């Protein structure tokens, strides 16, 4: 609830900044301004643009924080699934090992029988 309130306040500020920019921009368009007046208005509008950027960045930061908070648990679970898949790969190699043992045994018997 508080977060929503803060978000709304940020939006109101953003609207106020936009309105201020428009006032300064229309004043800056006046052809009768002195170079000094024009330069001051230019600086003012740049400051307002800075303010706008910082509000936008703050909104972006809040949005991302709410998204990434709950992803860690799924990441851990995915690692467990990968481990299980690796274990299944081991079944085929276990059979290969068992086969090698039986083959060796028969080779020994064959050699022994050949010696008789």
């Amino acid at each position, binding site marked *: 609830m508080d977060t*929503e309130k803060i*978000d*709304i306040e*940020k*939006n109101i500020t*953003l609207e106020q900044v*936009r309105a201020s*920019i428009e006032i300064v*921009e*229309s004043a*800056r*368009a006046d052809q009768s301004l002195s170079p000094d007046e*024009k330069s001051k208005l*230019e*600086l003012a509008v*740049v400051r307002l*643009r*800075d303010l*706008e*950027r910082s509000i*936008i*960045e703050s*909104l*972006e*930061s809040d*949005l*991302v924080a*709410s*998204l*990434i908070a*709950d*992803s860690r*648990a*799924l*990441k851990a*679970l*995915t690692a*467990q*699934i*990968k481990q*299980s*898949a690796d274990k*299944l*790969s081991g*079944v*085929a*190699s276990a*059979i*290969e090992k*068992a*086969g090698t043992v*039986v*083959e060796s045994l*028969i*080779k020994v*018997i*064959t050699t022994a*029988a*050949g010696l*008789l």
Partner: protein
Amino acid sequence: MRTQTQSPSSMKRQTLIITLGLLLGSCASLTKTQIGAVNQFSQASKNFSAYPSRVMTALAEIRVKRGVYFANTLDSPKLHINELDKIYQARKNSYKYSAKVDTTFKIIDKYAQSLMLLSSEKYVSDLKTQANNFGVDLDSLIKGYNSIEGVKQVPAGIGGAINKLIVLGGKQYVRSKQAKEIKKFVPAADSLISVMTTNLLEFLQSKNIQFLVKNEEEEVNSNYLSFLRQRQPGIENERDYLDLKSNIDAIKQLRDQTVAATKHLRRAHKKLLLAIQRRKTLKETIPELQDLYEDVKEINTTIEVIKSSKN
């Protein structure tokens, strides 16, 4: 060798025990419908991870373009270049945030790919390859053994029978293990997928996103108006302005599409969960048992052949 000392009745008993064991093991395997649901979920999540952050990067690109129009209105070279630097830095920051969103949703992609890997048929194929090599080698060794003068003859073809037993036993073991693991992981992941997709829907439909889109809509107009007040526009500038406006529309559409894709992803996982938790129907069980029966029958035939060659 043991096969030479066993009575036919004891052999039949052993075959029956093996068959029953295998039948029970087979009942715990995944059905084609369940594997299909894993594939469907994987398809639904494919490339999904790229969508959520695209709304943010598209907004960042609009900010850069309209920002350049504003910077161009500044007469002071110092203020002008500073403004361009700030636009560049803000774009970098936006991409940093969107990269975090990307990483978060790549986890769902990775999870789906892991499920596909776990339910893959490749483990059974690996078993068949290993067992086939083993059977051939065993038969050639037996042939060598039988060629030795004066030894008790070992039935030829026993390698093939052992091979089939290994494949059948291994296949059932792998399939029941796959089913057990999938049935453990999918329900555990469901609540996590639910939380992540709910968060994403809140993000996409949040007031903050609406503020950001609305701000760009108004600022595209405001920045271009500043440019018109201070400079003479060319045809390219006018086209840029119209492109920016249509990009805003595209972002709104992208947001709606991502909302739909997120809901689809959520439904696909729910469907997967239901498919995994559902008991096998008789229609699904009978063909599996029939396949298994054919495998067992083949093994029995080989054993019979061995027995007859022995007599």
